[in-house]
């Protein structure tokens, strides 16, 4: 998961990658809670695939999808479907090969055994990016790194003094629902 998150959000000079930004922690926590089990959603059958515009109809929960897809992805990589990858899991591939696998999932060129690889890719992409941008209280966006990258001030909740200041960069650093690390005594 860490390797996957690092290819979706690679580290650079401005932010850590998805792994160190906490996206995997975010996903772990989300999958362990109501989101992972689809609590509150409509889960009665019968289940039919339907059209795209009828929305997701899978009987599988997100946590089940992750479990089966991650195992299938690992089998796919170790089975030498990627050049020179025999015996290597996804995390051991080169960045280029990792990207090729991800692109293959995205375009449905890579087919996983017993699981919809494209559906997994879409789920993974959404969850990693949500973890990156959600409030740090959920485990991702560590130290508000994603918000600092784009200039989003977070949970400040009052721009009364700034609404009339047109075309001027907002100068103050972001604040999380949990505050800011420099508010704490060192």
């Amino acid at each position, binding site marked *: 998961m860490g390797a996957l998150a690092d*290819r*979706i*959000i*690679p580290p*650079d000079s*401005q*932010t850590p990658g998805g792994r160190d930004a906490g996206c995997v922690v975010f996903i772990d926590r989300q999958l362990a809670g109501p*989101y992972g089990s689809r*609590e*509150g*959603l*409509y*889960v*009665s059958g*019968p289940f*039919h695939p*339907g*059209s*795209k*515009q*009828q*929305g*997701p*109809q899978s009987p599988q929960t997100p946590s089940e999808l992750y479990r089966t897809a991650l195992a299938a992805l690992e089998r796919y990589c170790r089975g030498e479907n990627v050049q020179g990858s025999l015996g290597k899991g996804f995390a051991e591939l080169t960045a280029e090969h990792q*990207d090729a696998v*991800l692109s293959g999932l*995205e375009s449905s060129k890579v087919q996983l055994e017993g699981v919809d690889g494209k559906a997994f890719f879409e789920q993974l*992409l959404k969850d*990693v*990016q*949500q973890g990156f*941008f*959600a*409030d740090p*209280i*959920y485990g991702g966006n560590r130290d508000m790194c*994603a*918000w600092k*990258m*784009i*200039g*989003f*001030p*977070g*949970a*400040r*909740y*009052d*721009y*009364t003094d*700034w*609404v*009339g200041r*047109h*075309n*001027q*960069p*907002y100068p103050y650093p972001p604040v999380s*629902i949990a505050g800011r690390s420099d508010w704490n005594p060192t």
Partner: protein
Amino acid sequence: MPRRLPSKDVAIVGLGWTGSILANELTEEGLDVVAIERGPWRDTATDYAPNYVQDELRYRIRHELFLRPGQTTFTFRNKMSDNALPIRTWGAFMPPNGVGGGGVHWNGETWRFLPSDFVARTHLTQRYGASFLPADMTIQDWGVTYADLEPHYDRFEYLCGTSGTAGNLQGKIQPGGNPFEGPRSRPYPNPAQRQPFSHALFAKAAQDLGYKPFPQPSGNMSRAYRNPLGVRLGPCTYCGFCEWFGCANYSKASPQTTILPVLVRKANFQARDNCEVTRINLDSSGKRATGVTFVDTSGEEWEQPADLVILCAYTIFNVQLLLLSGIGTPYDPAANHGVIGRNFTHQTISDVTSFFDRSKFVFNPFIASGAIGMCIDEFNGDNFDHGPHGFVGGGYMGQVQTNGRPIETTPVPPGTPRWGAKWKQAVRESYQSALKPGTGVHGSMYSYRDVYLDLDPTYKDRFGRSLVRITMDFHDNELKQNRFLTDKFADIFRAMGAGQVVKEYRQAPYDITKYQTTHLCGGAVMGTDPGTSALNRYLQSWDVPNLFVMGASAFPQNAGYNPTGTLAALAYWSAQAIRARYLKSPGPLQHV
């Protein structure tokens, strides 16, 4: 057998905007009123306080304030020949839940419909001829006029403290307002909100192109306000967490910030939250409601007898209760007969995303309110000659961007990969210099013979009741309208100086996963002919005269505006008829 409660004068189903309005009006008459609400009690200090409400994941992405589909949902299909499937997680619209209803999570856009909207079929037929309308379009006149509703629009705006600039005061066009609006009897109670950079830039470009931009009428306060009931609201802080969120500043008009503080203190008012009404009970004649049955959180059934029953639930749930209770003739599209479920509509929304030179433009998109924005109304309703264009209807358009919350609002130019280093770079470079209004083109959706609601034959809710089945697709008229409006809208962003303008037309088929608005309308429409309407012009059931049905379910078709102003005005209009006439002589208020 349900346990029977002592009888009430009035049972209200749903405690959102219309339920709160009706409860307050009828308790003023001294009536004993109970409001039964499916969702929880919600209040500002306890349910959306400023130390945690600004949480995009919790409220926007995970839908904290909304109905859970597991509680109940709908099934959906595009065509009558398709197999409908359940909506397992919300997409195209977001059914509200709990006290305050949609009035908690809305943006606060407080529009009036155009005078011609209320007489749509008569007006369009007179101007363009009957053959100009598509054969399967079932639009009709409302049975009320703008003049009927004006005092009630006014009342709602003063209740809410709506911030805006009048465009038409008693027939005189006012500078800076919407010159196309119907005449209003007095100005808005509060001046318009201040506009952030991009919204002001849009207005300037629109003006340069010859349009007449005006501030969107806003239920977010431009200053502190005390409404006629004595309830106080605070000034909006442009926090950028409005739609999908409750307002922690008491700055957004909602039942909680305008009516409930007065209503809950009345001895003749009672609210039952977390209680779901499962049917309306009728006597043996089938022409008189005897009350409602509801289920509490422990699963126990109760009967609440009442002399007067008022449905104030969300559009589709009003229709579902009518269908499940056997009130009115269910609509049959094949025979083109019946009324319950007929003339169901949504909206035709599209957007334009534009990218500006980041060395010259810094928009701070996170500085915004829910109903912020500068709009033009040149292409709404019948404000322009449709003759050369071959469609009817229209919408307002504007830079109405409400937020820069980064899960939702991190636009990147077309061609950017969806992940990886290039995606990350594009997000970083575009965030401060891209604009994404969200619902920039707010188009009407007119009604059609094959767009309707009925009961699903397969899927059930947790009580075993049939879900409502939605059959809906876009028709050519709306798609043409949308192309025309979206092109005009994009021209304004080009005039603002955008380097790249990306048009996102609304396309068929109608997609239940893509959010448009929560403005579902129709299904139990008002009118003057019981053959084509479920309700008379006072929102009274033709079939069961001691039943009234509030809300946008009464709209015969949807106009190019947000519906709250109109459905609230209709609620006051109906309440006035109940107070002045029905209570003195209970029975049909209109005869055919």
